[in-house]
C-alpha cells in the first residue's frame, strides 16, 4: 500500500514523495524524512490523514499519509 507526503500549495497540493513501506529503501526513506524535517523547521504543521485519522503529528511516520500545512496567520478580519 502506497503512502505519500504532500504539502498544500498554490496548485492545491504538491506531492513531495510517494513510497511503499515494503519496498522503499532506507536511504530513500531518510531522504523523505529530511524533506519532512526541513519543512517542519520552516513552520509547517503535519497531519496524518491516513484513512481520515486527521491528527496532527510532529514526527515523520513511514506508515502514514502525511499532509504538510504551511504556516498560518490571522487574516484581515471584518
Amino acid at each position, binding site marked *: 500500500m502506497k503512502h505519500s507526503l*504532500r504539502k*498544500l*500549495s*498554490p*496548485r*492545491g*497540493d504538491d506531492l513531495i514523495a510517494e513510497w511503499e513501506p515494503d519496498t522503499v529503501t532506507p536511504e530513500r526513506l531518510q531522504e523523505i524524512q529530511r524533506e519532512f524535517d526541513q519543512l517542519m523547521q520552516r*513552520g509547517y*504543521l503535519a*497531519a496524518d*490523514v491516513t484513512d*481520515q485519522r*486527521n*491528527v*496532527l503529528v510532529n514526527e515523520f511516520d513511514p506508515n502514514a499519509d502525511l*499532509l504538510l*500545512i*504551511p*504556516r*498560518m*496567520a*490571522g*487574516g*484581515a*478580519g*471584518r
Partner: protein
Amino acid sequence: MARDGSVGIPCGPFPILAPPGSDYHVAYERARALLCQVLPDPDRRYFERTNQIRIRAASGKTYDIAPWQTQILDARSRLIGRACLQLTVPAPSYDRMLAEYLLLRNDEARYWRIANITRFSLLEEYRSRKCAIWLGMILGGIVIGFIQWWGMH
C-alpha cells in the same frame, strides 16, 4: 511572481470567474478533491451539500468554516464571533478550509492564538440587524415606487 515560482494564480472563493482548464480552476478542483478525501463521510456529505465544514470543537463551540469566512457559535448555536485565518502561501480557499478544520480538530487553543477573531456582542448584532431592516425598507420602497411608476406608464 510568487516566491515559489507560481504566476498569476488568484486564490479566492469565486472560481466561476476563471475559465475552465485555467491554472486557477485546476488548483481549485484539486484542493476541493483533497478536502473531500480527508473529511470523514458525515462531514464530507455536509460539505458537498452546503460548501461549508461544520466542526464541533472540544470546548463545545461550533465552527462553520466557509470559503470566505468562519463563524463561531456557542453551545446554544448563537453567533459569538467570526474568525479570519489564512495560509502564508497563496492557495485555493479549500486548502485554507482544510487547514482550519485540522487545526480546530486537534488544537483549538492554537487556532485561537493564530486566527484574527472578532467577537460579537448582542448590541452590535442588534445594530447591524436594525441597519439591515432600514436598508431593506428603503430599497423595498424604491422597488414599489418603480413598479407603480411602471404601471402608470
